[in-house]
């Protein structure tokens, strides 16, 4: 039962995020946009490129969707509203998100096209940058909660949200989340100006629809992840818990979509440099800081 509710909530969230993205990209608010796009895509001819790696071509978008859904499966939307409360929930989120990269590699290699291939391998480079930054803040979050259960992580923020308790971790995790769902300014795999759509360039019809849906679900999943780990999940006065999760996730998703509008795409080498030279030391400092605070002050 809660599985169905969570999945429906995810899809509804994905729709809202798609509307937001349309708004961010074109400056116009079109609530019916994604629905019309989806229906229109269903009718398009499905094109398979010559000498494509058929397995990868087909599996890529589907794996992207599955990995986003799996990551969302361990996130609580309200107390009791979770698909599966794994004891290693926080780690499982990361494990599922690793397959985003595998999916994009497949989508890049599958079509046998230069733009897609460059886009796919670029994302691997991007992963080398963000993968530490998305795991290390999770360490500090788990340190405070003394558990990897996502529900306990939310409950541990009762006194103070993690965004206040460990702001550095929040900033790093937010940036890494932007990089995972390859939103601008980290949209290296799909760079519209440089790679004509990159990994998505050779997909048409229903497969493109799945890929776009998967991307939206990924954005929603990451927004909920940020909310659960750093913004106190369902905690809050007055409103019912699910409303709090919904509201906070929407704010995070909007921030993620609108943040990159005003900034040029990051250069691959700069991204790697900044992540490894500044990001990782900052993450380590964050761990040290949180550790000291926890030992000295308590939770």
């Amino acid at each position, binding site marked *: 039962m809660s599985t169905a509710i969570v999945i429906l909530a995810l899809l509804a969230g994905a729709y809202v995020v798609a509307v937001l993205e349309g708004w961010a990209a074109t400056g116009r608010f079109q609530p019916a946009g994604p629905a*019309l796009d989806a229906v229109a895509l269903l009718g*398009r001819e499905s094109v398979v490129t010559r000498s494509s790696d058929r397995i990868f071509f087909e599996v890529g978008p589907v794996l992207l969707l599955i990995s986003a859904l799996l990551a969302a499966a361990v996130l609580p939307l309200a107390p009791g509203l979770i698909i599966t409360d794994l004891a290693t929930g926080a780690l499982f989120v990361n494990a599922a998100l690793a397959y985003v990269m595998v999916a994009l590699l497949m989508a890049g290699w599958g079509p046998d096209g230069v*733009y897609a291939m460059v886009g796919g391998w670029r994302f691997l480079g991007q992963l080398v940058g963000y993968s530490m930054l998305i795991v290390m803040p999770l360490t500090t979050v788990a340190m405070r909660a003394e558990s990897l259960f996502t529900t306990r992580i939310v409950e541990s923020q009762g006194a103070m949200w993690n965004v206040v308790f460990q702001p550095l971790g929040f900033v790093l995790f937010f940036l890494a989340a932007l990089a995972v769902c390859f939103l601008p300014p980290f949209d290296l795999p799909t760079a519209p*100006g*440089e790679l004509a*759509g990159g990994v998505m360039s050779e997909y048409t019809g229903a497969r493109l629809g799945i890929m776009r849906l998967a991307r939206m679900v990924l954005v929603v999943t990451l927004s909920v992840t940020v909310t659960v780990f750093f913004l106190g999940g369902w905690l809050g006065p007055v409103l019912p818990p699910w409303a709090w999760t919904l509201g906070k996730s929407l704010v995070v998703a909007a921030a993620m979509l609108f943040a990159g509008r005003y900034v*040029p*795409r990051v250069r691959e080498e700069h991204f790697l440099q900044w992540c490894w030279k500044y990001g990782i030391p900052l993450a380590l400092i964050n761990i040290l800081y949180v550790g000291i605070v926890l030992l000295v002050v308590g939770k």
Partner: protein
Amino acid sequence: MISGARQAEPSWFHRLVARAMARRLTVFVVPGPDVARAYGLDIEAAGLQVVDTPRHAGVLLLIGDPPKGLREAAAVANAQMPRPRAIFAVGAGDVSPLPEPDLLVDMNQEDVAAGVEELRRSFAAGAFAPETEDFEAEVVREDEDDEGEMDPGHMHHDSDEEEDESDDGEDEGDQNDQDLDEPEEKEVGEDQLEDFMSMIEMTEGMPASGDGLIMEWVPAAYGPLFPGLPGGLSLVFTLDGDTVAETEVEPGIEGHSPVEILYGPVERIAERAAKLDSLTPVSYGLLIQRAIESTSGTRIGEEEALSRVGALERERAASHLGWAASFGFLIGDRSLSRGAGRLQIALLQAANVGEVGRIKGDVEDFVHKTLRTPLLGSKLGGIGIVDGSGAENAIGPVARAAGFETDARSEDPAYQDLGFAPVVRDGNDALTRFQLRLEEIRQSLNLVLEAGAMAATGSTDSDDSSGTGTATVETPRGMAALRVTLEDGMVTNVQLDAPSMCNVRLVETVTMGKEVADALAGVGSLDLSPWEMSG
């Protein structure tokens, strides 16, 4: 022909899908959104959504009269578009080898918007029509036949261990052992594939990149319809991974010769000159005007001179805004791209100097905000550097960004009266060129307001004059020089030095050995126009 993918009677599902498609028309623009904006067309406002790959598009939008090379490229793009697809021609003439356009309208915003409405109706009604035709074109078939076969190298059976400059020392050691251990296996069974795959032998003779790693080099075409680059510019990068190993740029567009356009009677030559480069029609119209005037030695009045200054500067500002829009799209800064595009169209549609004055405030804000874009410095700093001799031979804003004060406007008395001084920066990279062009936008708008008029008039009477005349004009991309010979009112000889022909030589310096995104940003920063290049 708007045709569905299958021949079938349209069912309720098809009708639903067709109606959805009609509401959300996605369009791929030929030759490019920059050309559409230069004509003053706002495609997004007309209700179409511009996408950057033909595979996501449902409508192929042809702007103007594309020359043969572009029509063939458009045919390939058309073949790549998934059906149902349509061809929407705006002001186009003959479109072979493409099929007949589904809709043909004139080149103005209202007609385009009306055309879009009509296109929606056609889509909703006929997207899954029972009649479907395959799209056959010679050029598409040729493309299929010579798709590059990757040559992975040969498999050698000889057991020489060449001392290779390859750095894979460990591999070489293993191979040595291997060949010693199993010498007899080579005699056994010729049909058996060789026992050991020596990477060194296999990659013999293949070009190596700077770090000694030998990978397959992949040719990647960036043009002529690539959405981030100027429409019509044909680049072929040979990519070594994601680094550019070799560059080939085609000077000009096949089927479009800027020089031949000018031949003919003197009468309507200004119109013909405007067709030379649809991105900067005023500059070229003015150029030929001045050249003709110099043959007959006519002098123009001060008012006329100021008016010409206004027209030229307005076009310069619009051209730089259009460049900023394309460049913003290339580097992934959406707000820059949209803001600049909107301002360019507004500026081009301004009817008089008063309206330009009203736009000026917005433009100033835009320039101010753009110069402060965060991370712009890190994105563009150090990109597209043209070293030493290349910078000296550059022209236009590229040269001015390298510290050279070359500007043809400094010689013009009308400009000197207005107190003109060229904007010069010293940085010689893409960031400097970007900042310089934004500064020039500001400067140009100020000049327009000071000039007070912006109509480029002056007629060329067919007075059977003969003679030779030269003229120069500082187009937005650099100085263009024209030498024209008239005989009895007919233009018989034309020599054109266009700025892009000069700057196109810098493409190789700017792209070699660079990561593909940086290479594209470098090429974009040169602001080339393939229309004024003659092959």
